[in-house]
């Protein structure tokens, strides 16, 4: 099965600084990959590169069949990125922000049939954004609430590849459980999920693989062997070199 994400010796620059200094990573559909590593290791950069926001200048980078070195614009509508800060317009209400985000993609859904795009209302409800909150201007929300809105948009869209930057951050206990549920559901429906985390202990239960990064590269991988349904337990692409890793059968 074709991998959802394939990076091989990928180098990406932020200005003159090599944010990614030769990354090797393969993610299959249904995988939940947890990126961990110290600050500045390149986790966020890897997620942004995967979303086509950060240009990969050397090596190989293919996401959902799109060669990122040639065309990193086309991949964006099929990928969902949850960044540190929610991309919201402060003066618009929650409902208006969500509507704008979703209308941007009307008629361009690139989601697989298995991953049905849920209604916006359902998504908002799932994330606890109900009642008066929906009419509150985004600027007045707390950081955690803003992230809920961003996540709600992702849930409503149902992309094939989820790139989540510290999805547990800023969420309270209840929120974290919802996030876990969402990740499990997404992977269960065949989407690939890559999430960066500072606290691998929190995300480890979700993960099918834990990838350690440092200095802009992947330093090691641990396969926890828990693959979700759909792909029929497809194995990681055997061609992909696993660097200094420990494969657990």
């Amino acid at each position, binding site marked *: 099965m074709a991998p959802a994400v394939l990076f091989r010796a990928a180098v990406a620059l932020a200005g003159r600084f090599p944010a990614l200094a030769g990354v090797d990573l393969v993610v299959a559909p249904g995988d939940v990959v947890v990126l961990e590593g110290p600050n500045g290791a390149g986790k966020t950069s890897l997620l942004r590169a995967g*979303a086509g926001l950060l240009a990969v200048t050397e090596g190989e980078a293919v996401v959902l069949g799109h060669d990122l070195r040639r065309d990193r614009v086309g991949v964006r*509508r099929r990928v969902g990125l949850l960044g540190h800060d929610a*991309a919201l*317009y402060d*003066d*618009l209400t929650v409902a208006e922000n969500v509507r*704008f*985000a979703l209308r941007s993609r009307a008629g361009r859904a690139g989601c697989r049939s298995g991953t049905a795009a849920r209604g916006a209302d359902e998504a908002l409800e799932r994330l606890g954004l109900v009642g008066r909150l929906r009419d509150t201007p985004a600027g007045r929300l707390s950081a955690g609430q803003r992230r809920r809105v961003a996540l709600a948009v992702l849930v409503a869209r149902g992309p094939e590849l989820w790139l989540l930057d510290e999805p547990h951050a800023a969420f309270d206990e209840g929120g974290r459980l919802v996030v876990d549920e969402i990740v499990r559901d997404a992977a269960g429906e065949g989407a690939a999920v890559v999430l960066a985390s500072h606290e691998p202990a929190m995300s480890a239960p979700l993960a099918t693989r834990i990838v350690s990064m440092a200095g802009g590269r992947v330093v090691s991988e641990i396969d926890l062997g828990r693959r979700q349904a759909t792909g029929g337990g497809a194995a990681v692409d055997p061609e992909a070199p696993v660097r200094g890793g420990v494969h657990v059968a």
Partner: protein
Amino acid sequence: MWRDGVLVAGKDLRIELRSRVVLNQVAPFSVVVLVLFALALGPSRAPIAQAAPGLFWVTLLFATVLAVQRSVAVESTEARDGLRLSGLDPAGIFLGKTAAVAVELAALEVLLGAGVLLFYGVHVRSVATLVAAAVFGTLGLAASGTLYGALAGGLRVRETLLPFLLLPVVAPVLLAGTRAWQAALGQGSTGTDPWMALLVVFAAVYLALGVVLFGPLQEAA
């Protein structure tokens, strides 16, 4: 492209309605500029009346810079990423933002125009020319402004760089608009045709440029 444009224009205008920056800040600024010009040139009415068309357009140019800065500022760094990720057609985003700025400027022009007529005591000969020149001039200003706004968008030095980049480029609009308004107010001896043609060409050229170049520019963020 058009649907995306309408979507973005609607979003920008709704934000303006909520935050009222143009209404509460740019408009008073423009009025202050008009008053300052009068102070500089007055107190006798004659020089002010003669300079009125030019002063209107110069003030409008400054207001454009502010309106464009605001249009760019609405897209915070994260929101800009969001726009890139949204899959919206960049040409549509350009047209939408241009349309929003144009609407804001138009509202401003009504205010400014009234101010000029009142303060500077001029008599109008041809309203049609006034309006036509204003319409095409505004389109040209909004289009070139949005384009340069995108150019300087993500840069930290944007505030100082944008006026420097934009104003020389829109000098022809100032020239043409002033001449057209002079004719409409019965001053000056030039015909209006070449000037109107220039305004139309400028607007058309910059709308076209923006549609083509906005996409590549977004990637430079």
